[in-house]
């Protein structure tokens, strides 16, 4: 039987990025995917005729442009379009918009506070400085601080030099930034509740923490360090939905000679003498491979796909304790016309941006209280976009696809599994919130898909439905991601690598974990990485 040079488990964006780079290095690579389609959490699916759903991830900014270029993704159809700001609706019938134009942004904030309107420059300077510190780390393997290998020492030195290059004030801010709550951080700049709520949302998305929990300031940074074609911090829509990213990756992979098998769920990794030798599919089929790369999260990989006896106890314990708590769900809606929001002028660009209804820090924190109590939020936080306002390919003319990211949703309801009735109740909390601001909204709904953490885990394979394959808190970042000692994409099992968002630099549709893992694998095989662009300069 043919033994593949590498078998990648899971056809998500990181698995495909990894597979592409390995294939282009001359390896013979097989991707096995349990679903009948590839894409993982970056998919576009026609769930009702004529409508494409970005039914998991829904916006794009973090995906590294170096990868798009290396893998020729534009040639395979990838196009990312910047979108236009957004707004938080306020309960008094007004809204606070975010405009792309600097001065419009200031004038908008001045409607609520003249002081806070002029505070944005300093806020933006400080956040930008922090992003510039972190950005170059995304495309580097985190150093092992206990190792004396020249590479690790070099990387540690690099980190140290970067840190030492900061001014005293910046150093203090960096440490604060990595540990503070987003609420405390925003208090340093702004006074107005709705303005703070507007910024705080980036600190909680995908995270089982509230805006007042320490560590959420870093999550905000994570959402700010992306770009759309050099416009740092900008977010965009992938034309054709987020599946366009993975469709282009799959096409690029096949064009370079790679093989994808869909409908092929891995039961376990074949381990002999402490070394990965291939995979065994759910039906019992054995596929030999010289090495195995898992795109699945660290818990799924090591608690389900590898036998316990192959793993050291301390590693297992850390994997079990890895925080990968589900905190969010998705409600995806096909609409037969554009919803109206009486608070918004009809010609407002906000329709083409992201919309929210949580206008105070307290409401945001209260929504988190429900999660802690084991319930979905009665008054949830929504990140709502209508990509069809800018992308004509996802719905028939005049009709729209709406994506609602919903937080908070616990992995279990009151300690038991989600039921269909729970799911419907969760959906109703979302629809009723939107309908409060958009009369007649329910009548526009053609079809709706509701995904609680239960569906995200069962259908996408994300443990507990955590979108980042593990929380982005400081204890789980850099050389501690996913667990200490195994931050360099390798595992206790020889020839078994990790390439998903559980690894450095974490989640979001970024592709960097898949790329960085490929670097390490090729290094172990003593193969060239000359087909991989170095990280773009941050000057």
């Amino acid at each position, binding site marked *: 039987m043919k033994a593949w040079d590498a078998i990648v488990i899971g056809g998500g964006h990181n698995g495909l990025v990894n597979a592409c780079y390995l294939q282009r290095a001359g390896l013979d690579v097989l991707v096995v995917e349990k679903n009948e389609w590839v894409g993982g959490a970056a998919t576009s699916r026609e769930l009702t005729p004529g409508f494409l759903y970005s039914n998991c991830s829904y916006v794009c900014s973090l995906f590294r442009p170096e990868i798009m270029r290396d893998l020729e993704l534009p040639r395979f159809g990838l196009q990312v379009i910047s979108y236009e700001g957004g707004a938080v609706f306020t309960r008094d*019938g007004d809204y606070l918009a975010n405009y792309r134009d600097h001065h419009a942004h200031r004038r908008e904030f001045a409607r609520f506070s003249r002081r806070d309107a002029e505070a944005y420059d300093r806020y933006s300077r400080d956040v930008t400085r922090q992003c510039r510190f972190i950005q170059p780390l995304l495309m580097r393997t985190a150093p092992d601080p206990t190792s004396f290998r020249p590479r690790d020492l070099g990387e540690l030195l690099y980190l140290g030099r970067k840190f030492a290059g900061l001014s005293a004030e910046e150093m203090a801010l960096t440490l604060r930034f990595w540990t503070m709550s987003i609420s405390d951080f925003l208090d340093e700049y702004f006074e107005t509740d709705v303005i703070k709520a507007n910024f705080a949302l980036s600190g909680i998305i995908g995270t089982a923490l509230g805006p007042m929990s320490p560590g959420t300031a870093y999550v905000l940074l994570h959402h700010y360090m992306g770009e759309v074609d050099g416009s740092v911090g900008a977010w965009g829509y992938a034309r054709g939905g987020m599946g366009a990213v993975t469709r282009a990756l799959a096409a690029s992979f096949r064009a370079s000679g790679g093989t994808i098998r869909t409908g092929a769920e891995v039961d376990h990794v074949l381990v002999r003498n402490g070394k990965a030798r291939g995979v065994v599919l759910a039906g019992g089929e054995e596929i030999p491979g010289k090495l195995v790369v898992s795109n699945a999260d660290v818990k799924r990989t090591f608690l389900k796909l590898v036998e316990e006896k192959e793993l050291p106890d301390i590693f297992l314990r850390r994997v079990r304790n890895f925080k990968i708590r589900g905190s969010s769900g998705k409600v995806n809606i096909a609409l037969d016309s554009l919803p109206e929001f009486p608070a918004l002028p009809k010609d407002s660009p906000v329709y083409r941006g992201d919309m929210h209804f949580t206008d105070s820090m*307290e409401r945001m924190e209260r929504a988190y209280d429900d999660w802690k109590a084991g319930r979905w939020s009665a*008054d949830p936080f929504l990140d709502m976009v209508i990509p069809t306002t800018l992308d004509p390919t996802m719905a028939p003319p005049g009709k729209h696809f709406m994506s609602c990211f919903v937080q908070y949703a616990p992995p279990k309801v009151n300690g038991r599994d989600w039921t269909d009735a729970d799911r419907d109740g969760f959906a109703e909390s979302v629809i009723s919130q939107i309908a409060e601001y958009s009369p007649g909204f329910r009548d526009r709904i053609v079809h709706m898909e509701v995904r609680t953490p239960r569906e995200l885990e069962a259908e996408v394979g994300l443990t507990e439905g955590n979108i980042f394959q593990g929380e982005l808190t400081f204890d789980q970042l850099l050389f501690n991601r996913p667990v200490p000692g195994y931050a360099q994409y390798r595992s206790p099992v020889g020839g078994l690598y990790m390439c998903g968002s559980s690894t450095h630099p974490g989640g979001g549709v970024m592709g960097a974990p898949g790329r960085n893992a490929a670097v390490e694998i090729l290094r172990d095989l003593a193969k060239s990485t000359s087909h991989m662009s170095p990280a773009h300069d941050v000057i």
Partner: protein
Amino acid sequence: MIPQSAEAAPQGNSRAAAQSHFRTLRPGTPFQPRIDALALKNDWYDWAGYRAPHSLWDEELEYFAIRSQAALFDISPMTKYRIEGPDAEAYLDRVTLRDVTRLKPGRVHYTAWCDDEGFVLDDGTLFRLSPTRFRLCSQERHLPWLLDSAFRFDVTVEEETEAIAGLALQGPTSSAILRDAGFAGVERLKVFDLAAFDHDGASVVISRTGFTGDLGYELFVPAGKALGLWDRLMVAGAPRGIRAIGYTALNRARLEAGLIVANADFTTSEHAIRADRTRMPDEIGLGFMVDPEKGNFNGRRAILEARAGRKLRHVLVGLEIEGNIPAEHAIVYHKKSQEVGLVSAAMWSPMAKRNIAIASLARPYGDTIVDDLWVEIYAMRELQYQKLMKRAKVVPRPFIKLDRRTASPPADF
């Protein structure tokens, strides 16, 4: 389920009424109807979020209007703060570099202010309108800084950029025009004096200040009275050649006067993404403002420590460059080889008949080493760079000194 609102309804409808700003990304100033009528070139730029003219009809002729007759320039987009209260003097003395106790009512001074690390937040002009009332004009916006600094001072700080319109009337006939327009006694104003005059039932504050190094005045008026003031000046000024101008002409005049522009000749601290781009007053030629004797002010300790420890890293200088090709954004070299700085503004000066520039150099160059400096000019000519290495000499600013700027009383032209 949505909880009942804990917040008040929108104040009146003023907050909601202001929503429509998104339809006008570059609004005009209160003078816009008059400027639009004269903007034959439709050549606009973005000045702090306002639509402002680069040039109205001919940038070279607009420049000569400043130097030969009188030029009217709209300065309304300048950021303006009204600072008032029993502690206003003490407060401003604490916030800014210069000694505000020596700024008498009816006087103006050019000043700057720093963050706690001694880096310049901005430069600007401070108008003392009364013993307890001031106006601070600047390029950038500083309301949080000014409000936070007001802790424990009995003072109010209000942003009044939109409420107050401003005009600069600059040039040899400017004093005569104001007199002819009925501002009796304006000729008694000495440089940096200000006084209030009646205009259409309101008050216009006229100061003998400007950004041109020439005889000139600045006028501040409530926005609602702006157009009447413009018309009053234009009618009175017609016989003496008054012309409206855009920024390009003004920028030439300011460079001849050796004046610097925030975020053009230096980067303000709150905008410096790269921490090494920040500058202390001594590093941008504003060291003369620092008054170590006056008591505490923001940045004092850091500035004095930097002076004592010789930690000042940069210096801003005036350069006179061989030839007549402007050296804008040219790199400055020592001995034609070592890179030591950058030119931030440059031009051939019609008044000085010299090729002038403002440059930032890394000390000791420009400070103790001023010999053997060169600039490399890349002059694009018909799709080819003509590369020129020209000798540069450090010279004092201003590059021109006009007697009429300070003559008292001023002449009619």
